């Protein structure tokens, strides 16, 4: 039977199928963090139920953790973290707490341990679970009742989804990254364009990307409204996984690779929707508004709301410009920022930090700009420190922090002040998300680093121009 990648993974996890009922799907890995799990644990306790598969469940502390040394000062944050620890102990779940070398953002930890593997079903009470789709896993965020359901049964009753192929052919220009690709995809299909779909990213430009870049793309599928994003596994995937602590070893590895190699959409598979993008046409992309779909190439200007044909979009753009304190027609490159944030489950992996470090090396963060570099996990931090990246950042005047979700959602003290403007490698530029009144432009790590140096939204190419002008 021919089918898409998503359909194949779905079919191989159907525990029960009955007329008029949603399919019951088996869940291979359930990831937990402190914010969306407490009521689910409490539900189990109230019903006197055990957690069915502690060995397929992993918890980490990420949303609330401070990125500077010391305890959590906020009472609500501390209660959530302490509650997770108690719950994990009571129900026998492995946890990576603050201070542990394995701690980090849940979507960075799974892949770096090799727990995230092709063909798996992975869920977490967090919308950016789509990240794991980069390995050819079907991975998506769920609500607290569903978290409890998976805890008790290791399954979920699920309604079918539609499939969308997003094919990106050609070569990306130098300085254009996975982040620019996904921001351009979201701007093209809209923040609701993926609703009800699982997106499959394919084409030569995707094949050429590293695993980390693929994770950046799948991570933001949810910002297009999609349930999940996926990329078929290939040699790049297998090379990334081989030798990681939780990856199969020996004969099991060979068996796994043989199975994983069948995980791709058949040539005659039919997608419900198809989108084509020419990779060579893409340039560094930044957002100017208050949702991830309100973005434009860095070389353009803040759009005039009147230029939108759709009345809702026009009104949304108007509101966004008011909130962002921007005037239509302003060149994006002229926008000054106060803060630059490099991190999050979108761009907090070692490759992202290397890319940013490469730009700031030998340069200095512009006067009046603060740059926060927050590794996605403790392992990423240790790796970066072993490579000397921490010193590159601190020498350039940036702050080098401990791992966590940090300024992506401001549940810890890393927040923007009212009116403060940031360039951020995170995934959401919603009103108030990084702090009441905070203004965020979503950018790639390269653009973030160049922006930190110039003080206005910039690409690395602008820094070269700066040198030429000076000379």
């Amino acid at each position, binding site marked *: 039977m021919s089918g898409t990648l998503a359909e194949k993974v779905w079919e191989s996890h159907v*525990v029960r199928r009955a007329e008029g009922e949603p399919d*019951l799907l088996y869940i291979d890995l359930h990831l937990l963090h402190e914010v969306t799990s407490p009521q689910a644990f*409490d539900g189990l306790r109230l019903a006197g139920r055990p957690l069915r598969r502690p*060995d397929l469940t992993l918890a980490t502390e990420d949303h609330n953790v401070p990125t500077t040394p010391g305890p959590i000062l906020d009472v609500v944050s501390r209660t959530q973290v302490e509650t997770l620890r108690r719950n994990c102990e009571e129900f026998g779940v492995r946890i990576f707490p603050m201070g542990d070398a394995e701690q980090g953002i849940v979507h960075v930890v799974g892949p770096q341990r090799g727990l995230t593997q092709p063909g798996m079903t992975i869920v977490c009470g967090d919308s950016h679970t789509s990240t794991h789709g980069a390995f050819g896993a079907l991975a998506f965020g769920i609500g607290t009742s569903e978290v409890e359901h998976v805890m008790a049964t290791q399954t979920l009753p699920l309604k079918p989804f539609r499939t969308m192929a997003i094919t990106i052919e050609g070569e990306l220009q130098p300085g254009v990254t996975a982040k620019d690709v996904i921001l351009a995809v979201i701007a093209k299909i809209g923040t609701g364009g993926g609703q009800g779909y699982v997106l499959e990213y394919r084409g030569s430009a995707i094949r050429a990307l590293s695993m980390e870049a693929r994770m950046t793309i799948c991570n933001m599928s949810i910002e297009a409204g999609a349930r999940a994003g996926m990329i078929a596994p290939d040699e790049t995937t297998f090379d990334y996984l081989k030798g990681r602590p*939780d990856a199969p070893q020996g004969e099991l590895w060979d068996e796994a690779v043989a199975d994983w190699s069948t995980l791709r959409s058949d040539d005659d598979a039919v997608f419900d929707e198809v989108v084509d993008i020419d990779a060579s046409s893409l340039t560094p992309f930044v957002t100017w508004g208050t949702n991830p779909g309100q973005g434009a190439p860095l070389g353009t200007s803040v759009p005039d709301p009147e230029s939108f044909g759709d009345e809702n979009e026009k009104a949304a753009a108007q509101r966004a410009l008011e909130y962002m304190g921007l005037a239509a027609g302003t060149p994006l490159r002229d926008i000054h920022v106060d803060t630059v944030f490099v991190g999050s489950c979108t761009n907090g992996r070692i490759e992202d930090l290397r890319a940013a470090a490469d730009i700031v090396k030998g340069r200095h963060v512009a006067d009046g700009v603060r740059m926060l570099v927050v590794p996605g996990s403790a392992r990423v931090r240790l790796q970066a420190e072993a490579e000397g990246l921490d010193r590159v950042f601190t020498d350039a005047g940036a702050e080098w922090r401990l791992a966590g979700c940090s300024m992506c959602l401001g549940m810890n003290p890393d927040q923007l002040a009212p009116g403060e403007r940031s360039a951020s490698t995170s995934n959401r530029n919603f009103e108030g998300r990084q702090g009441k009144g905070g203004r965020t432009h979503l950018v790639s790590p390269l653009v973030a680093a160049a922006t930190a140096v110039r003080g206005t939204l910039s690409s690395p190419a602008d820094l070269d121009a700066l040198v030429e002008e000076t000379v």
Partner: protein
Amino acid sequence: MERFTTHTGIGVPLRRSNVDTDQIIPAVYLKRVTRTGFEDGLFAAWRKDDTFVLNNPAYAAGSVLVAGPDFGTGSSREHAVWALMNYGFRVVISSRFADIFRGNSGKQGLLTARPSQDDVELLWKYLENEPGASITVDLESRTIVAGDIVAPFEVDDYTRWRLLEGLDDISLTLRNEADITAFEATRPAYKPVVASS
């Protein structure tokens, strides 16, 4: 989830329509890490008013809420159902409910009974004339009995069956636990497990 066949308890007349979930429990009460204790946030804004019905000692121990149409609109928060149940309510009577609230209620074991608005008016008058009077809600026969009033109510067959059997989503899935166990036996050996500490 407990089985629900019939329930008798003090009826509380809430003469308001469009009671949204922000009124049932304001967002500021959502920070708790348990599924219990949300009764402190139930109708929090209204309870500051001395004349609010639940501040009348005769109704304070109520377990059957009789409300106006379009109960439970707005935010999908499951906490609204938890708050009502934590307070002690087992039944909400209204001629019309918001879909998501009705769905959430069925899953948690709170009966949403839908009589006609005319019958709701009769129930309100009865409960206001007889503060602290009991109402009996019989799910088996889909009937509300209060004093001389006998009012039929609607509830969808699937929800009624689940409440009568005491089956929440998890219980329903666990009825097929043998299928889960059988599936687990077929999972490839290379699939990862989380190393215990």
